[in-house]
């Protein structure tokens, strides 16, 4: 049983992981999954509609699913289809998150009016758009760092509404009952309408009805082109620059010059009609034809789109966070009962989760064509990945579940952090010019991030030492010794990596800006980690601290690493001040506070620690643990 139980646990978990990796299925007769795979060029990157839908929903409401008023759930792509083609229905979905009470008051809304007490629909907000517009103008005049929470909330909601408007205008003109009919009429009368418009503008005799029809449509097209500018959906003509994709609105405006309605625009208008009229067979057939046409010209593009859709549906990092959580509890339980099997199960599940995370990170790297760390989101993934790898190695040697507890906790926490960082939009964004270098991203950034991983891991091992020693009697001499050795080893590793990473950053800076060291906040943050790790090692070598002292110092290392990772970005100065959310400041302060508390707890005299109270008493001569204080 003791041998079989861990294997059984592993098997169950592997089955669960396998089930998440299956190809996504359509929830109704419409091939919505297929629609989700269609490519769009947005913010410099080709991505599937599915990613657009998911990252939009994350940005608007912090989660990927939409619940309708009748309680049924919508997949992200289904929501996008409604926004694009049946906006009167989508406008009633409660997808705008508002938590600021004063902002709610602005809309005369109460928290009870919202789904989950925080999500509201476009229709609920639209009566007060004028006032929101006025408030947004006032708030935008203030520098972002100096805005009040109300002003930040106004600016954020305003941005979200613009985002929603863009989506509504990206594929068809909202509010037209039969856009395909409009386009087909235009196709039929293109030449006649063009002549009528020209004559009208030249104040010549003309067919008034034709001119008006043309101009009305023209205005709609121009609206689409202006509002949904960033959504480049229409591929270039064969032989043209392959990156020269256009918004649907712009392609439609071309009709008045070319006399031919763009085929992509027609296809999307066809999707709109069949979606509105609930004709799944026709929708699916149209999708098949359109895709076959794209497939001939952009096979690679579609290949990546398909893979990304599959990746989105699998949500490997979500699965990972669950597995890490499970491993954490199993490893924790192994200290109380059934040590060997639980320890082994925790180790294997951690290993499986780590493999899954590795696969996820590799997929992202392949999709982006970049090294693993390119922004804050991916740094969170990588910090967790690196720390768990170190834990697996430690656990392989020490087999006492300590590293598994650390792996579970750090793995889970970093993925939760990553989730919150993903709320600001697409996580595979393009790099600014100066960062557009795979060599330095692959060396400096990866190594510095590995340094963060190791410093955090040392800090977490120290927390385990303090918690177990003070609160339980389980920290016997052998465990305390091995924790001491583990922490020391990881600290050495952390020093090496943070140092080499920082130095490589200096060399990059010398190559790019002509200075090895510029005292930029992020550089200083990395330097502080190096100094701190060096300080701990020197204090140990000089005999100034023993095991407990190292542990307390290592916990302080958590504060310094958190500052370097996030705090420096919050200053809003320097070359590295990219990507930052206001909410992060609160969490950073909370984290620092918790670590300070742990340091204080760690400084309680050892005689009061439960583990040492007992072990010290019966062997007064040896004092095995106190001796290594």
């Amino acid at each position, binding site marked *: 049983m003791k041998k079989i139980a861990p294997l059984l646990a592993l098997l169950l978990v592997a089955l669960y992981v396998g089930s998440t990796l299956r190809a996504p299925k359509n929830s109704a007769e419409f091939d919505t999954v297929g629609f989700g795979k269609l490519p769009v060029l947005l913010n410099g990157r080709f991505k599937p509609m599915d990613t657009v839908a998911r990252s939009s929903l994350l940005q608007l409401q912090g989660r990927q699913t939409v619940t309708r008023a009748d309680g049924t759930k919508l997949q992200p792509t289904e929501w996008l289809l409604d926004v694009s083609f049946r906006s009167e229905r989508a406008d009633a979905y409660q997808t705008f998150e508002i938590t600021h009470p004063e902002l709610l008051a602005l809309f005369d809304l109460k928290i009870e009016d919202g789904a989950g007490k925080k999500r509201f629909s476009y229709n609920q907000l639209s009566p007060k758009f004028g006032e929101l517009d006025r408030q947004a103008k006032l708030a935008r005049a203030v520098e972002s760092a100096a805005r009040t929470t109300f002003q930040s909330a106004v600016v954020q909601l305003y941005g979200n509404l613009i985002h929603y408007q863009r989506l509504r205008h990206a594929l068809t003109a909202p509010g037209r009952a039969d856009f395909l009919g409009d386009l087909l009429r235009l196709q039929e009368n293109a030449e006649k309408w063009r002549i009528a418009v020209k004559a009208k503008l030249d104040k010549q005799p003309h067919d008034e009805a034709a001119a008006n029809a043309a101009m009305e449509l023209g205005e709609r097209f121009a609206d689409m082109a202006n509002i949904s500018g*960033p959504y*480049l959906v229409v591929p270039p003509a064969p032989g043209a620059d392959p990156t020269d*994709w256009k918004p649907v609105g712009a392609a439609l405006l071309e009709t008045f010059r070319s006399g031919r309605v763009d085929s992509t625009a027609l296809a999307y208008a066809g999707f709109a009609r069949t979606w509105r009229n609930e004709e799944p067979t026709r929708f699916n057939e149209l999708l098949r034809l359109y895709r076959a046409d794209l497939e001939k010209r952009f096979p690679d593009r579609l290949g990546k789109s398909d893979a990304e859709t599959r990746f989105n549906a699998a949500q490997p990092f979500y699965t990972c966070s669950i597995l890490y959580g499970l491993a954490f509890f199993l490893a924790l339980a192994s200290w109380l009962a059934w040590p060997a099997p639980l320890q082994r199960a925790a180790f294997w599940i951690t290993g499986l989760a780590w493999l899954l995370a590795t696969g996820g990170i590799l997929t992202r790297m392949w999709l982006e064509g970049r090294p693993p760390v390119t922004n804050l989101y991916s740094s969170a993934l990588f910090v967790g990945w690196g720390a768990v790898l170190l834990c697996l190695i430690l656990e392989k040697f020490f087999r006492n579940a300590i590293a598994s507890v650390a792996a579970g906790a750090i793995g889970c926490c970093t993925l939760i952090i990553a989730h919150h960082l993903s709320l600001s939009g697409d996580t595979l964004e393009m790099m600014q010019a100066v960062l557009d270098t795979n060599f330095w991203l692959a060396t400096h950034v990866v190594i510095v991030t590995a340094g963060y991983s190791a410093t955090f891991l040392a800090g977490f091992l120290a927390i385990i030492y303090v918690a177990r020693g003070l609160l339980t009697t389980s920290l016997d001499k052998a465990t305390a010794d091995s924790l001491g050795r583990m922490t020391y080893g990881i600290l050495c590793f952390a*020093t090496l990596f943070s140092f080499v990473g920082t130095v490589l950053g200096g060399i990059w800076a010398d190559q790019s800006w002509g200075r090895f060291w510029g005292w930029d906040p992020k550089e200083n943050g990395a330097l502080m980690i190096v*100094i701190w790790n060096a300080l701990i090692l020197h204090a140990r070598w000089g005999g*100034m601290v023993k095991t407990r002292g190292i542990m307390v110092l290592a916990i302080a290392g958590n504060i310094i690493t958190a500052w370097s990772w996030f705090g420096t970005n919050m200053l*809003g100065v320097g070359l590295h001040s990219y990507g930052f959310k206001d909410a992060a400041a609160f969490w950073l302060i909370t984290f620092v506070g918790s670590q300070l508390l742990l340091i204080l707890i760690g400084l309680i005299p050892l005689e009061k620690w439960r583990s040492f109270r007992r072990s010290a008493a019966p062997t007064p001569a040896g004092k095995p643990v106190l001796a290594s204080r």
Partner: protein
Amino acid sequence: MNGPLRTARDFLVSLKLTVVLLALGLILVFAATLDQVNLGIWGIQEKWFRTFVVVQPMGAGGTSVPIFPGGYAIGGLLLLNLIASHFYRFAFTWRKAGIQFTHLGVILLLIGELLSGLWQEDYRMQLHEGETKNFSEHHLNNELAIIDTTNPAHDEVVAIPEEIIARKEAIQHAKLPFRIVIKEYFPNSDLAMRDAGSTRPPQATMGIGMSVAATSQPLTYKQNERNMPAASVELVGTSGSIGTWLVSTSFSPHSRAPFLQAPQAFTHEGRTYRIALRWTRSYKPFSFQLLKVTHDVYPGTDTPKNFSSRLLLKTPDGREDREVLIYMNNPLRYGGYTFYQHQMDSAQGMTGLQAVKNPSWLLPYVACTMMTFGLLWQFMIHLAGFIERRRAAAAANP
């Protein structure tokens, strides 16, 4: 060795000193990082790092109070501590070689940072397409230039650094047949058209200053802004005042308003001069002509993907006459300078290059290589020892 000397030696070589200095260094770096919000990246370097004592102005009175040891003090002591313990404890063994190598690297790195603080010069070079320049301009410093343009073959320039102007004393230069009297000086200023009905007398009797007035502005430390000093300068010859000019770095070819771009010229005793307060220039024995700027963006966005400048590099002796390309992450090292792509305004066909002269630029590379090898060496020895012990332990109790 007697008592006090031994105490001093023990103090200098002690690991306790190292730890204390590291802790102080950490606080220094952290405080300086926070202070960047107020002082910017250049301001904090002067205040926190390139000094022995950090001085903080307190209260409204502006009395300066020393609050912390500066970078020179902490770095210097750390350097002493490192060198002293190195000599004191030095005994070569393979086990210790990594540590020794690493610390030698740290010593070099500290020296390198000190030297670049002392020697490094940062300049900017702004060029428009078609324009040729043989000088770059300092990114912070300014100078009052009086240029004798009488000889069409070459100009004779007398340049007076801004620090001297700031003293507001009369200046006599051997090459100039007049004295320079600084009547007003603003370290940062704003310009406005002078009100016709203003009761304040104009700041100048000659040139642009008759119609434009400069007002004092608080100093800026923002990274994308530059202080624009102004001064009211009277030139006094042997037979009395020649005139008073308003000069400012705002009057320059860089100005947006065309009427501020024209140089202010005058004649005195048959010679023609120009007077200008300008960004301190550093002339080079070669010139750049900007041929073309390119600004690539990601398709469908404004996000820049790359900036590049194609330049024609020439020396007067004709030995160099070739095209060079400078772009992001790819600088040009030439003539002791390194030219980096810094800014770009592709709509105006303008590029901004950064020119850095740092004779000690190689030191960090050497230091880093040594330290990396040292750390790797040490890490490997520890790893090998650890694995060996595990193996022994496993063999002892299988």
